[in-house]
Each structure stands twice: as structure tokens, then as C-alpha cells.
């Protein structure tokens, strides 16, 4: 068995096993495993099989279209792309400082997004593995099984997500792909009636979010050895933190820590991202592999998302979530907790923080009106960074004097986690699959660790075996409309 399992020394005689498509994750990807006759594992790869080319076809479009175009990258966290693009274009339209109303309304939209996405991921996608067991029967291992066996848990999950979606609808105009944020601010305030509608439920939502944290803690404490070790490996971490060092998912500065929790850098302005992050391409995935430039590709890879954020900030600025953060930090002790399954715990702490933040914002009269848009001296480029549900999201645009986009560079949350997800699946393969007769339940172990990261792989699809070298696409009438051959 080779050490790092990324590339087999001699793939020729090996047998290929594929998990294709990955399921109960947002988007599509696949895992391929190469094993020898004794079922020893020689290679494990997580492939992202989509290519869409957003970064290129956005070029030439008027900049004001961008916040509504790029959110179509992802229907699960459209608000994150909508806001990251808006933040980048704030710089372009010279809106150095938004009005307070615009800031609070965007924050409300964003924390609604965090709440709905975290609820979706835990209750609809990941909880079946945790409630029923990693190798429980396929027919039950889904939200339908949860709704049958734990109907109250499923119901609350549905209503938590619904509340987050309603926050988005009220601030952005519709639940998926809204239009509320524009370069320089927002185009809509919240009415008193809409606010009151949300206020009716927010205290219940906070209580249920607390219960969700308690549920994950209970799962963790029932099997601490499993939860602390499954797929675990040490890595660096990166996230935005507020300028005061506290958790802030909408705005802040970049902070990174090493494997032991020591600060690698702090206070880096988001528009300096190219100074600290570099990317490489590997031929077997359409998703790039970023790393910290100063440490290089071999040592500089890092982890983003809830597990990083909860351990990277100095504190969480809402009381109930801060109590939970402290308990989490006490549990992990002097060293950071690197276990992928601890993502679920951290994610539910963030969901509670989002619920509390929404409550505070609903009590802020700034969301009801006032000046919503500012403009200033035009610039030719802008960088917007936000903490999306899955981690740090970077949007970078150039715009010319005719208002057309000249350049677009995106580093989405899941891309940061590309290397760590590959490390995690290799770790699980080593520990659970190596040398054994591989069955569906064992393969689901690989998916369990991928789900912990809550990846957003977007689009792409399914195939067994290698794709043909030539593909022809014909209409029902037999006319050739597209064809491609592999070079």
C-alpha cells in the first residue's frame, strides 16, 4: 500500500471500485478506489466531475447582472454568491461604506442562509448516517427513514430550514435566486408586518437550534472514540474572523492557524487573498487545489467551514452559541479538534448563532428602512469575501469603463476543502476498507466522511466504468447536434 494513496505506482492490474454518484451531498462527485487481488488499497481519489466555466462566460457581461448570475452557481447557498459578488462590486461602484440599513439587511439575508443551509445539511442529508449507523440498510438511510423513526426530529429540521428560507424570501424577494442585494447596497427593506411574521417564530427556532446542538453532543458522547477518530487527520485552518477577532460570517479579516492551533497569520485584508493563497490543478479533477502560498502545495493545504470557524475565532458574539463554543473548546482541550465528525457539532453551534443573530437583527429598526444604496468614485476591480455555510468564499472581478466584466476569479468554499476531503477519504479507506471484502456499507463510510464537510460539488452526474472516448449527441430524429472525442 502506498503511503499517501493519491496515485498508485502501477495502476494497470488493479481493480477499480467507484462510488458514483456520491449521494446525500449537494452537487455531484465520485470516489474511485483501486485495489489489488488481496483487497489492499493503492489509490483513492475524490473527483469533481463538473465543468461549467462561469469564470469565463461572466466576462463581457454588465457588472450589475453579476450578483444574480453567479448565484446560479449553487441553488443551496445562492445568497452567499449573491452577497460575495455584491461585496466585490461595492468596491467597483465606490461604495466604500454601506449604509447601516443596507449592512443589517444583507446580514439578515446571510444569517438566514446559514440557518437554512445548516438545517438542510444536518437533518435532510447527514443525520440518517448518525441516527441509524453508517452501514444501516440503504432503504432507510435517508430523510424518509428519519421522518418515520424520528418524526419530531424530522419535523423540526423541516421547520428550521423553512424559517431560514423565509428570512431569505423576505430580504431577497424569493427563496432561491432572489434579487435583494445590488452593488452599493440593497433594493428592499423589510416591512413591519414581515418582521412581525418572523418574530412570531424566532424564539422557537432558537430553542430548536439549542436542541439540535444537544442532539449532536449526545451522538458524539455515545461513541466518543468513533467521533473523535473517524477519518481524522491534522490540518491547518483558515477563515474570516471579525476585526475584533470574534466570529463574523459576513465580513472581517483572514486568519489562519497551524495544526496545533498557533496563529499562522491574522488580520489579513480579504483583498490580499492572492498574496496568501495559490492554486494548482490536478488532471483528475475539475476542482482546483488551493494552498497557503508561503508553505507551498505539499504543506500548505488547509480546512475551512464550521469546524475551522468555531476554533478560529476568539468568541461568538451571541450568548447561547458562545456557551456552546466554550463547551466545544473545553472538550477538545489544548489541541484543536481535527475530527471530521466534529463538523456536525460545530455546524449546529453556528446554526444556533445564526438564529440568535437573526433575533437581534429583527429587533434593529435599521432593517425597516432608511437609505439603502450608496455610490462613490468608480474603480476597475473589486474583491468580495464572505463566510458561506461551507467556508470562505472569494469573488474577484475586473470591470472596464463600459461597465463590462473583464475578469472573474472565484474560489468557492468547497474548493478550499479539496485536499482535506481527499485526505479524509484516504484515511477512512486505510482504516476501514484496506484488505477487506468491500461492500455497500463500507463504501458508505467513505461518503459519511465526505458528508461531514458538507461539500457543495454542484452538477455533473453518473456513470459506471470509463466513459467512451467519443461521444455523439443526436436528436430524436437522428440529427447529430454535438460530438466530442477525448484527445
Amino acid at each position, binding site marked *: 500500500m502506498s503511503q499517501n494513496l493519491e496515485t498508485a505506482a502501477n495502476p494497470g492490474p488493479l481493480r477499480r471500485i467507484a*462510488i458514483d*454518484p456520491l*449521494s*446525500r*451531498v449537494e452537487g455531484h462527485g465520485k470516489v474511485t478506489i483501486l485495489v489489488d487481488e488481496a483487497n489492499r488499497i493503492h489509490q483513492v481519489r475524490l473527483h469533481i*466531475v*463538473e*465543468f*461549467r*466555466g462561469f*469564470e*469565463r*462566460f461572466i466576462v463581457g457581461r454588465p457588472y450589475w447582472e453579476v450578483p444574480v*448570475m453567479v448565484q*446560479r452557481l*449553487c*441553488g*443551496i447557498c445562492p445568497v452567499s454568491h449573491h452577497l460575495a459578488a455584491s461585496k466585490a462590486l461595492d468596491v467597483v461602484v465606490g461604495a466604500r461604506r454601506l449604509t447601516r440599513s443596507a449592512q443589517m439587511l444583507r446580514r439578515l439575508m446571510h444569517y438566514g442562509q446559514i440557518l437554512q443551509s445548516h438545517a438542510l445539511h444536518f437533518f*435532510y442529508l447527514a443525520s440518517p448516517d448518525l441516527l441509524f449507523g453508517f452501514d444501516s440498510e*440503504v432503504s432507510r*438511510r*435517508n*430523510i*424518509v427513514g428519519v*421522518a418515520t423513526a424520528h*418524526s419530531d426530529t424530522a*419535523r423540526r429540521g*423541516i*421547520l428550521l*430550514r423553512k424559517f431560514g*428560507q423565509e428570512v431569505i424570501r423576505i430580504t431577497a424577494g*424569493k*427563496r*432561491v*435566486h432572489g434579487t435583494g442585494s445590488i452593488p452599493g447596497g440593497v433594493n428592499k427593506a423589510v416591512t413591519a408586518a414581515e418582521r412581525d411574521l418572523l418574530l412570531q417564530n424566532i424564539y422557537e427556532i432558537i430553542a430548536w437550534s439549542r436542541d439540535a446542538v444537544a442532539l449532536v453532543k449526545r451522538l458524539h458522547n455515545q461513541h466518543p472514540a468513533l467521533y473523535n477518530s473517524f477519518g481524522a487527520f491534522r490540518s491547518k485552518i483558515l477563515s474570516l474572523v471579525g476585526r475584533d477577532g470574534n466570529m463574523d460570517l459576513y465580513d472581517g479579516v483572514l486568519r489562519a492557524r497551524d495544526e496545533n492551533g498557533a496563529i499562522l497569520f491574522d488580520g489579513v485584508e480579504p483583498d490580499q*487573498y492572492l498574496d496568501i493563497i*495559490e492554486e*494548482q*490543478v490536478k*488532471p*483528475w*479533477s*475539475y476542482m*482546483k487545489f488551493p494552498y497557503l502560498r508561503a508553505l507551498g*502545495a505539499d504543506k500548505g493545504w488547509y480546512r475551512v467551514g464550521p469546524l475551522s470557524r468555531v476554533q478560529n475565532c476568539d468568541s461568538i458574539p451571541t450568548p447561547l452559541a458562545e456557551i456552546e463554543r466554550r463547551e466545544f473548546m473545553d472538550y477538545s482541550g489544548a489541541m484543536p479538534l481535527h475530527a471530521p465528525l466534529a463538523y456536525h457539532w460545530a455546524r449546529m453551534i453556528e446554526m444556533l448563532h445564526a438564529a440568535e443573530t437573526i433575533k437581534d437583527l429583527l429587533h434593529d429598526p435599521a432593517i425597516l428602512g432608511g437609505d439603502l444604496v450608496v455610490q462613490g468614485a468608480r474603480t476597475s476591480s473589486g474583491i468580495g469575501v464572505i463566510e458561506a455555510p461551507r467556508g470562505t468564499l472569494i469573488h*474577484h472581478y475586473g470591470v472596464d469603463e463600459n461597465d463590462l466584466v473583464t*475578469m472573474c*476569479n472565484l474560489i468557492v468554499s468547497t474548493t478550499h476543502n479539496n485536499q482535506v476531503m481527499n485526505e479524509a477519504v484516504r484515511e477512512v479507506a486505510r482504516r476501514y476498507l484496506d484488505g477487506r471484502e468491500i461492500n455497500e456499507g463500507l463504501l*458508505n463510510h467513505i461518503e459519511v466522511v465526505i458528508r461531514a464537510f458538507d461539500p457543495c460539488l454542484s*452538477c*455533473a*452526474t*453518473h*456513470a459506471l466504468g470509463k*466513459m467512451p472516448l467519443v*461521444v455523439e*449527441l443526436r436528436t430524436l430524429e437522428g440529427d447529430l447536434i*454535438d460530438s*466530442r472525442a*477525448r484527445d
Partner: protein
Amino acid sequence: MNPIAADLKSADMDTPRKPKVRIATTSLAGCFGCHMSFLDIDERLVALLELVEFDRSPLTDIKVCGPCEIGIIEGGVCNAENVHVLRTFREQCTTLVAIGACAINGGLPAQRNHLPLATLLQEVYTTRPGLAHGGIPNDPELPLPLHKVHPLHEVVKVDYFIPGCPPSAEVIWTFLSDLLAGRAPASDRRTIHFD
């Protein structure tokens, strides 16, 4: 009372129960936004689950689509795998539904259609800022991208189209209620949107 709840009630009273209608769903070159809008039926999902069961779907761990009454597909066709999955759905599903802008006309991903694919790949994988080791991914494990993004009906026969980016949960709910009750689906035109 909504039609599904009404069906539910009669199902409770009549024994034996009607067998559940089997539904498969997938996203091809889409963003999962249509699936999200489907989940925006919120707590009505629980009532729906009394009447239907899911085959292959992002919500289950069934990897290959088996025989189903209804197949729902979001996203257009952008690579060889999409073609394969789409044809499998057509073979396995009695009624095939194209949901959302991408499935119906290619949607936003089809914005790449006016650019040569080679140029796109070249620019995204070799000339971005902050890119150290560029190169176009070409491993056999990666499905071949097509030159253009195509709508579903250019490749297979599609029985129903639900427009919107995404269609609202109300439109999806009304459509499914009609279909499950054996009526011709008919949405109030005021609920149909194309954005």
C-alpha cells in the same frame, strides 16, 4: 383541503393502501436550486411521503435509476455522463418532467455556448490569477464535456415542462398533486414565472 391531503385521507380509510408512486429525481448541469424549491414545500413533504417513495435522488443512496412512474430532471446536458443519465431516466420513467430553466433551455450554464470549449478550459485552468500549476484536467475518470449545453428535449422525449429559475414550491406542489391524482397538470398562470 389540498388534493394530496384528500388522497391521504381516502388512503387511510380504504384498505389495502394504494402502492406508493415511485419517483426518481436528479440534477444534470443545474445548481440544485430546483431540488431546493421542491424541498420548499416544507412540512407538506411529510404528507407527500405517504403517497410516494424515492428511487434515485440526491436525497437517497440509490445510485442507479430503476423503474419509476415519475422522473424529474433539473439541469441541461453538458457532458457525456449527463447524456447517459438522461437516457436511463427516459428508459426507466413512465413520465419524464423537465424542471427549471436549465432543463428547458440550457439556462445560465448555456451562456458558455457562444465560446469555444477549448478557450473556456484554457482560460479557467491555465490563466487565472494565483494559479501555480495550471493544466486542463483530462483524466479518463472525468466525463467529456460537450461543445454546448443542450436542453433535455433535444436528446429525449419530455412529457412535461415546469418553467422558472427555479419554479416556486407552489407550482411544483400543484403539479405533483395533479399528477398523483391522475389529473392533467394545470397551474394557475399567475404562479408561473420564468425568473
